[in-house]
C-alpha cells in the first residue's frame, strides 16, 4: 500500500519502454518545486502543442499477445500513483480524454447520439477496398459526400449481434470521455453499392486482387439480414487526420513530444479497466486503438482513439475467430492464464473453470449475445491478455473510473442500449438490465475500496458527499477530521487544533487562515473498514486546490 505522503511528493518513476520523461503532472517535482502551482488544479493538459507528423506504427497483434502474456509486469514492482492527474486527482481534458458525463449532466439524446455529428453515410456507397477474410470481413466505402467509412456486417447466424455491440460500445465510451469514431447502423442492399474501378480485395496471404461484383454479393449474402431483406452493417467514419497506427498501453510514443506520461501510468488508461469490465470489452487491446495526426501538417498533434467495440457486451468471437456470442472464457480468463492451466494440469483436469457453469441467457436473447451479471465480478474480470495499464490500476484509479460509471443512470443506460436498434425489445431490455446490474456491482466494489468522499465545496464550512453511503453501501457513524497548516514550499504540516468528529458531511473551518490549509478526513463506519482511509483536502485562499486519497 502506498503512503499518502508518497503520493503527495510524487511517485517513483517506473520503467518506460520508450525511455520517456517520467514526472507526473502532480509532482513535476523537482526538489525545490512547490506542491501546488498557481494554476492548479489544471483542467486541461495542453498536449496539443504543434509537432511534426510522427511516423506510422504497425503493431503485431500476435507479438503483443505473446509479450504481454509471457513478459508481464513484475508483481514485486511498486506501482506509482497515476501521473497525469491534476491536484484534485481528476484527469484533465487532453488529446486522450475529454471529460463528459463525469463532470456534467448529459441529456438522453446526447448520450444516444454518441460521437455522431450528423455524419451518417449518404447512399449510394462506392466500395474502394475490401477484406475477404479475418475475424471481421468487410469493406471501405466512400459516400456521396466523399466521406470514408469502414463497413462490417453481422454474420448470418447472429443477426444484430456485433453491429449493435459496436455502436452501443462506442456510445458508452464516448460518454465516458474517450475519443471514438462515429458509427452508424446502416441497412444495405446490393443496389446501394457500386465498385470503384481501382478497388481491390485483400485475400488470404495478404494478396490484393481486383474487386469483383461477386465479392460484394457474397459479402451481402453471407451477412445477417433485416426482415426487409437488407443486410445490416455498422459503418464507422474514418477518424479525422492521418492515421498513425495503434497506441500501446506501455511507455510513450517515442516520436511524439507531447506524449510525456508513460501510458501505463495514465489514469484514463488504468481506469479503462473498470469501464471494460463493466461493459465486458475483453478485446480492449492495443490493436483496437488508433493514433491520428490532426491539424495542419507541421503544426498538428496526435489524438488518441479507441476503435472497434464489436467484441463488447455479449458479442465476441468463437474459437475459430468468427464473430459469435461472447466466448464464456472471455472476461473470466486470459487466453493464456497460467494459474487455471496449472491447476487443471496437475489435477488431471478435475479442477475445472467455474465460468463453464455460468447459466447464460443465450440464446433466449440472441441479439444480446452472451453476457450476464450474476457471476460478474469487477475485480476478477480479465481482458484477453494482460494489459500493462490495467495491471497498474490502483484503488484511486478505479475510484475515479467508478465515479464516472456511477453517473450513468438507469435511463442513461437504456438510452444508449437502445442505439443498438434491436429487433427484439426483450433482448434490448435484458441487455440494459444486465448492464445496469453490472454497473451497480462495479460501483459498489470500487466505492468500498477506499474512503469514497467526493464533491468537496468550501463555504462557511467544508461540505462533501459520501458516494458510498449515498448508494447504501455502508453505514456511517461520523467523520473524523483534523486541520493542518500546509507549507507549499517544504510540504511541512502543522496541526491546527485538536481532532474533531462530525456526524454529517460538514466540517467546520479552522479559526486561523494560513495560505494553505489541509484537512484529513476519515469516515467512521461500522461496516466498511476501508472508509477509515484518509482523504486529504487542500484549500488555498478558501478554494479547493488538492485532494489526495489513501489507498
Amino acid at each position: 500500500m502506498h503512503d499518502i505522503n508518497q503520493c503527495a511528493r510524487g511517485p517513483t518513476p517506473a520503467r518506460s519502454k520508450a525511455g520517456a520523461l517520467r514526472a507526473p503532472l502532480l509532482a513535476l517535482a523537482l526538489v525545490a518545486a512547490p506542491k501546488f502551482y498557481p494554476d492548479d488544479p489544471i483542467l486541461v493538459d495542453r498536449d496539443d502543442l504543434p509537432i511534426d507528423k510522427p511516423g506510422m506504427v504497425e503493431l503485431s497483434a500476435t507479438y503483443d499477445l505473446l509479450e504481454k502474456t509471457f513478459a508481464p509486469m513484475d508483481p514485486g514492482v511498486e506501482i506509482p500513483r497515476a501521473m497525469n492527474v491534476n491536484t484534485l486527482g481528476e484527469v484533465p481534458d487532453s488529446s486522450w480524454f475529454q471529460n463528459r458525463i463525469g463532470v456534467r449532466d448529459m441529456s438522453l439524446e446526447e448520450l444516444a447520439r454518441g460521437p455522431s455529428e450528423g455524419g451518417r453515410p449518404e447512399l449510394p456507397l462506392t466500395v474502394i477496398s475490401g477484406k475477404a477474410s479475418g475475424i471481421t470481413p468487410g469493406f471501405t466505402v466512400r459516400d456521396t459526400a466523399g466521406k470514408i467509412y469502414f463497413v462490417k456486417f453481422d454474420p448470418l447466424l447472429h443477426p444484430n449481434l456485433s453491429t449493435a455491440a459496436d455502436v452501443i460500445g462506442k456510445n458508452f465510451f464516448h460518454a465516458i470521455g474517450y475519443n471514438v469514431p462515429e458509427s452508424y447502423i446502416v441497412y444495405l442492399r446490393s443496389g446501394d453499392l457500386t465498385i470503384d474501378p481501382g478497388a481491390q480485395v485483400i485475400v488470404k496471404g495478404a494478396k490484393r486482387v481486383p474487386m469483383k461484383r461477386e465479392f460484394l454479393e457474397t459479402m451481402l449474402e453471407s451477412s445477417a439480414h433485416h426482415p426487409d431483406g437488407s443486410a445490416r452493417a455498422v459503418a464507422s467514419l474514418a477518424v479525422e487526420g492521418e492515421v498513425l497506427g495503434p497506441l500501446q498501453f506501455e511507455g510513450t510514443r517515442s516520436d511524439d513530444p507531447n506524449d510525456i506520461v508513460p501510458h501505463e501510468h495514465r489514469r484514463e488508461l488504468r481506469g479503462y479497466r473498470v469501464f471494460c469490465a463493466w461493459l465486458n470489452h475483453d478485446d480492449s487491446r492495443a490493436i483496437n486503438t488508433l493514433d491520428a495526426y490532426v491539424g495542419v501538417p507541421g503544426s498538428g498533434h496526435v489524438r488518441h482513439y479507441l476503435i472497434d467495440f464489436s467484441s463488447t457486451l455479449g458479442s465476441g468471437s468463437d474459437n475459430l475467430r468468427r464473430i459469435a456470442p461472447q466466448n464464456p472464457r472471455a472476461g473470466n480468463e486470459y487466453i493464456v492464464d497460467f494459474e487455471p492451466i496449472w491447476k487443471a494440469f496437475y489435477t488431471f483436469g478435475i479442477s475445472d473453470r467455474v465460468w463453464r457453469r455460468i447459466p447464460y441467457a443465450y440464446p433466449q436473447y440472441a441479439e444480446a449475445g452472451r453476457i450476464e451479471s450474476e457471476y460478474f465480478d469487477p475485480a476478477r474480470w480479465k481482458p484477453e491478455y494482460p494489459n500493462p495499464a490495467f495491471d497498474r490500476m490502483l484503488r484511486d484509479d478505479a475510484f475515479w473510473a467508478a465515479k464516472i460509471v456511477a453517473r450513468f443512470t438507469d435511463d442513461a443506460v437504456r438510452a444508449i442500449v437502445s442505439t443498438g436498434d434491436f429487433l427484439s425489445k426483450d433482448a434490448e431490455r435484458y441487455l440494459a438490465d444486465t448492464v445496469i446490474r453490472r454497473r451497480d456491482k462495479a460501483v459498489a466494489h470500487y466505492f468500498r475500496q477506499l474512503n469514497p468522499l467526493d464533491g468537496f465545496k468550501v463555504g462557511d464550512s467544508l461540505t462533501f458527499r459520501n458516494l458510498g453511503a449515498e448508494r447504501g453501501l455502508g453505514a456511517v457513524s461520523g467523520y473524523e477530521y483534523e486541520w493542518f497548516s500546509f507549507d507549499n514550499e517544504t510540504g511541512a504540516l502543522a496541526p491546527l487544533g485538536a481532532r474533531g468528529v462530525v456526524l454529517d458531511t460538514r466540517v467546520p473551518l479552522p479559526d486561523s487562515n494560513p495560505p494553505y490549509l489541509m484537512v484529513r478526513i476519515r469516515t467512521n463506519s461500522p461496516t466498511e473498514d476501508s472508509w477509515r482511509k484518509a482523504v486529504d483536502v487542500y484549500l488555498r485562499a478558501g478554494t479547493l486546490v488538492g485532494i489526495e486519497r489513501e489507498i
Partner: protein
Amino acid sequence: MRGTASRTIVALLLTAAVAAVAQESEELPNTREEALRRQREEKRKTVRPYVPNRIEEELLRIDKAENPSVFDLNWKGFYPRVAWPSRGSGAALGARYWQRDFWGPLDAAGAAFYSLYGYQHYDIQLGLMPHKGSRIPQRSWRGDELYEIGDVKPGFPRFPLFATFRYRYLPQEDFYGLGPEASLEDRTTYLQEETRAYLRTGLQFTKNFVWIVEGGYQWNSLGPGTSSSYPTTDAVFDDDAAPGLASPPDYVRFSTQLFFDFRDEPGNPHKGWMLALIGERFLDRSEDAFSFDRIGFDARGFLPLGSPQRILALRAALLGDHAEEEGRVPFFMQESLGGSHTLRGFDSFRFRGERIEIYQIEYRWEPTTFWELAVFTDAGSAAREGSAFEGLEWDYGFGMRFKTYRDVVLRFEIAFSNETTRYYIRGSTSF
C-alpha cells in the same frame, strides 16, 4: 600564500554553486502548464521513430496474411513439412504443394518426402478435392489406410473427383510373421516399392455423411530390406510363411467407404462420434492367386466427462480380408498393428494378419484449449483367416499434445508394453 589560494578556490566554487542554484531557481516553472510545456520541449530534442524488433516484424508479416496458421506458411503453394510417410519410416522432411483452382476449377496437390531411414514418398493429385478454405486435403501420403478413412473431412465440394498418382519407396518395412504367433525374435525387413494410380470420387450427402468410391491400379515390387540390424525377410521366411514374397502381385483395386461423422471438430474432437465402413476388392492382375476382399469398420466416440476439458476417447476397429478359394492375401497387403495409431507400446507392423481388431481408450484432459494431456491403453490382436482371435496384446502410456482448435499440431507419447517402450513425436492425433 598557499592558504590564500585555497580560500580563493573555495570562494570561487561557492560562488559558482550559488550562481548555479540561482540560475536553476530562475528556471523553475511558475505554473503547471509551463512545467509541462518544458517537459515536452525537452522530449522534442530526443524524438525518434518507433522501430519494432525483428521478431515483431516477422509476426506482423504473418498477422497481415490474415488468419495466420502454421498450415498457411507457404511459398507459391509449396509448404515445408515434416511427415511420417509410413510407419517405421522415421520423420521425413519434404514439401507439399497445394493450389486451389490450379486449372480452372481443378485443384492441384503434390508431395515429396525423404525420411531418416531412406523412405521416399511422392504423389500428385489433380481434380475437385475435398477441402475447407485452403487447407490441405486428406493426407493420402500417410500410408495408413485404416486411419486414413477417419481423416476425410466433410467439406466442399459435394462431389469430389480427383486423380492421384503415388509412388512410395519403403526400404525397411518390418515383418515378424503372420498371426498371433509372430515372434519378436523373427523380426526381418524387406523393401517395398508401391506405385498407385487411382481415381477417387464420392458424394457428400450432408455435413455428416459421405460416400466415397475409389478405383485404380497398384503395382508392387519387393526386395531385400536395407536394414543392417535385421535380416531380410526372404532369409527367414519362405513364400508359405510370407505369401507373395516370391512374386508380389499387382492389383486393380476398387474401394468404397461410408463415412458418418458427428464429431464436433474432426481433427480435434471433444464430443460426438464417427463410423467408417469400408469394403474393398483387390484383383490380382497376374495369376488371380492373390485376389481378395476386405471389409472393416472403424468406430470412434468422444465423451465429455462433465466438462469439455475432460474427454473420454474410445475407438474400436475391425478389419477382415478374405481371399478367394485357395488363394492367399499377400503379407505386405495385410493390415498390421503396432505404432503410433494402434498398439502404441509395440513396434510398427508388430502383428499382421488377415483379421485385425483394435480397441483404444484415452482419457484426455486439457489444461487449456491448445494443450492436451492423455493417459491411454490400447489392446488388439491379429489373426489368420479362418482363425479366431486369441488373447489381446495390450499396452498403456501417456502423452501430451499441442493443438489448434482444429488440429493436433504436435503429439508426444510414451507407451509401454511387455515387449518394449516406445516414444513418439507426431504431427497428428492418435485417433
